């Protein structure tokens, strides 16, 4: 046999397609998740994996309303200081241990006390949590907190097996044991996370996928190519510029949902010496900057029309949006007049941003738009860790920053606009805003909260510590043989009802 025959045989051997199993779903993620321990995890993408791995006390539906999951119902006392939750019966963890009040108390306490826990601030309002029945837990709060149920609809409310967590300690993420529809099989960092169907799941009848493999593919072009070649069946967050391609391909399906987050620019108002620059000092200049931006044009050019123009921390589609302050069209004359009013002709502004292509393109558009109003913006593109550091230490005049969004409005504003907020890198401080945000957090009456958030939105869209300009949609592409998939505003991939035919 010559080398030619050998090579041909080898090549032919290679060409046999590697057919997947019938209900073996491969999902391409944008990034590699960090630790798979709900107490320690930080990454957004990690939450997508948890949606299949770890059930929470509460879930949200497609309208961002809270619905039962491990807790079947809950009630808050009149003074807002007690939250009582009744738990689902007959739920077991992946290791066969029962999910009950004890397990919930253990998990919440672990989230509040584990040295490595990142859930402490989310549960800061909780004084103690007790089992008040075999399937009932009572949270006692230090002060009323309307956002607690929302926190329990995320990582803080993912209940883990006490036995497994006790044995693994801080290393729980290496082999997570939860009560979700799929159980952990293996993880190879930067390569794959494999889960398989948990037969004893409380709602197993609604899950039709046997095995899920999450593969991180950071490049969006490559993610899409993998979908089109059939190597993956569902793609997390396709690029806006690819949306039309996916929609036009009969062999692919497409789904989208308006996110809960926002895109904006921070202005350093009180964080160190850089706050003394004109933008930080003059409200009129910030308003001029905001007015000079054509938000819809950015949506059309950068996001191929898939995003939403915006001006408040929540999208215009949200029930919390203040409809009396709609997104204004670009008003360059008024912007120029405001700049003149501030007593200057042209203003030099330095703006730092993350060096990814979409952000860079957005910023170049904004740079050109505001130049017409008299702003000479120098863009400094930097990688993310440096940007974060600059932002938190006040080493910036303006920065471009995104927020992925939370289901409860409190999670989208309190930490940014409250003078003591952990993410308030602008060091914006307004006692009136503090009072409104604290009041809205303490109230459990939706109408009262809405009134307070409306008043808050009126103030911050006038003072503009953050110039919000839009809201992204989460876009998904999947193979046409995948049915039952729905996009959610929180961008979590929920596999309930999803079927895959080969």
């Amino acid at each position, binding site marked *: 046999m010559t080398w030619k025959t050998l090579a041909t045989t080898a090549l032919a051997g290679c060409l046999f397609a590697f057919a997947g199993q019938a209900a073996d779903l491969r999902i391409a993620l944008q990034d590699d998740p960090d630790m798979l321990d709900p107490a320690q995890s930080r990454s957004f993408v990690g939450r997508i994996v948890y949606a299949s791995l770890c059930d929470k006390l509460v879930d949200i539906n497609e309208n961002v309303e809270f619905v039962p999951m491990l807790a079947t119902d809950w009630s808050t006392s009149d003074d807002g200081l007690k939250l009582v939750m009744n738990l689902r019966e007959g739920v077991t963890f992946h290791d066969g241990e029962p999910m009950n009040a004890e397990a919930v108390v253990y998990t919440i306490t672990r989230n509040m006390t584990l040295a490595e826990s990142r859930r402490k601030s989310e549960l800061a309002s909780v004084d103690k949590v007790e089992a008040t029945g075999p399937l009932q837990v009572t949270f006692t709060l230090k002060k009323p907190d309307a956002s607690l149920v929302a926190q329990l609809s995320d990582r803080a409310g993912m209940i883990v097996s006490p036995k497994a967590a006790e044995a693994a300690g801080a290393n729980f993420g290496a082999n997570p044991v939860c009560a979700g529809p799929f159980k952990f099989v293996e993880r190879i960092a930067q*390569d794959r996370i494999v889960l398989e169907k948990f037969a004893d799941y409380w709602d197993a009848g609604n899950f039709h996928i046997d095995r899920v493999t999450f593969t991180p593919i950071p*490049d969006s072009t490559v993610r899409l*190519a*993998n979908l089109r070649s059939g190597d993956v069946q569902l793609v997390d967050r396709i690029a806006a510029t690819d949306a039309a391609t996916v929609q036009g391909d009969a062999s692919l399906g497409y789904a989208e949902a308006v996110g809960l987050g926002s895109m904006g620019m921070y202005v350093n108002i009180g964080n160190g010496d850089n706050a003394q620059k004109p933008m930080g000092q003059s409200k009129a200049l910030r308003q001029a900057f905001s007015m000079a931006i054509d938000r819809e044009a950015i949506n059309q050019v950068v996001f191929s029309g898939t995003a939403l123009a915006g001006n408040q921390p929540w999208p215009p589609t949200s029930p919390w949006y203040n409809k009396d302050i709609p997104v204004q069209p670009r008003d360059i004359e008024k912007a120029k007049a405001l700049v003149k009013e501030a007593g200057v002709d042209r203003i030099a502004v330095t703006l730092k941003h993350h060096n990814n292509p979409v952000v860079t393109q957005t910023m170049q558009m904004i740079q050109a738009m505001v130049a017409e109003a008299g702003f000479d913006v120098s863009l400094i593109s930097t990688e993310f*860790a440096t940007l974060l550091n600059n932002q938190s230490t006040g080493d910036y005049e303006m920065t471009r920053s995104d927020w992925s969004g939370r289901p409860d409005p409190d999670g989208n504003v309190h930490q940014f606009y409250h003078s003591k907020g952990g*993410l308030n890198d602008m060091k914006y401080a307004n006692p009136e805003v503090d009072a409104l945000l604290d009041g809205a957090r303490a109230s459990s009456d939706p109408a009262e909260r809405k009134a307070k958030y409306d008043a808050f939105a009126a103030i911050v869209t006038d003072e503009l510590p953050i110039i919000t300009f839009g809201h992204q949609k989460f876009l998904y592409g999947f193979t046409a043989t995948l049915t039952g998939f729905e996009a959610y505003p929180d961008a979590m991939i929920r596999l309930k009802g999803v079927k895959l035919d080969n």
Partner: protein
Amino acid sequence: MHIFIAKRLLVAIPTLLLVSVFVFFLQKLLPGDPILALAGEERDPVVLAELRERYGFNDPLPVQYVRWVAAAATGDLGISLRTGQPVLELIGQKLPVTIQLAVMALGIAFLLGVPAGIYAAVRQRRLGDHAVNFLALAALSVPNFWLGIMLILLVSVNLQWLPASGYVSPWENLALSLKTMIMPAVVLGTGLSATLLRHTRSSMMGVLKSDYIRTARAKGLSGQAVVLGHAFRNAVLPVITLTALLFGELLAGAVLTEQIFTIPGFGKLIVDAVFTRDYAVVQGVVLCTAAGFILLNLVADVLYVLLNPRLRSQL
């Protein structure tokens, strides 16, 4: 020979120490705080302070350095801040992947580059030489990421012959492993083959002009015997050094290709670690790469001696 190898290994120790000092202190100059970078959207000052203390970032740098080197000397490279996995385990997972990629890429580069280089040298300044040089220039100029994406679109999306990306260990499934690796290896190997071609060509041209080649021809040896038997053996020495260096470079330098084909390799590990300021991983990976480089150079030197008997007397 043994003494030669032992001497070279002893010299490696101070080199590695120097590398460790460089990598440790240079990355501390990077702006950005690892704890902040890891915190992402959840920034609670109290938790951040606790974490900083827990991972020893509050200690003076020399103390941190000594603690790290002392642990590294016993084989403990620390724990990844991002995933919580031991660094040594991460390296153990990623290194074989990149070695497989590098070996396959170099294999392709060698098969393409060396024969083409010999051919170009023999046909120098004639049409064949020009054609080969043109191809080499093209191969060098095509960016890896472009070639990679084009190949994926052609071979995986349109023809559906090979998987678009991913990685399968050869121990798990050899055929599938080769199948997933062949495209990235071709992408990496194309550029490298041009480098090898040019070195082979110039080295061969130098040797072909020498007296002993003229003698060999004068003795009436066939063209093939002169080129392959006499000239190539001498000309191949610098090419081997180059190959060893290229191999070392590939260990950490195949990042773009790894990124496009989603190969969980060494390059991707270090890039992700730098971006998240995962110090322990960066340090561990750089130290291992340095050690690998030193080892490969040693191997190249030994091969030199084996291929060129004249050098043996100098040991």
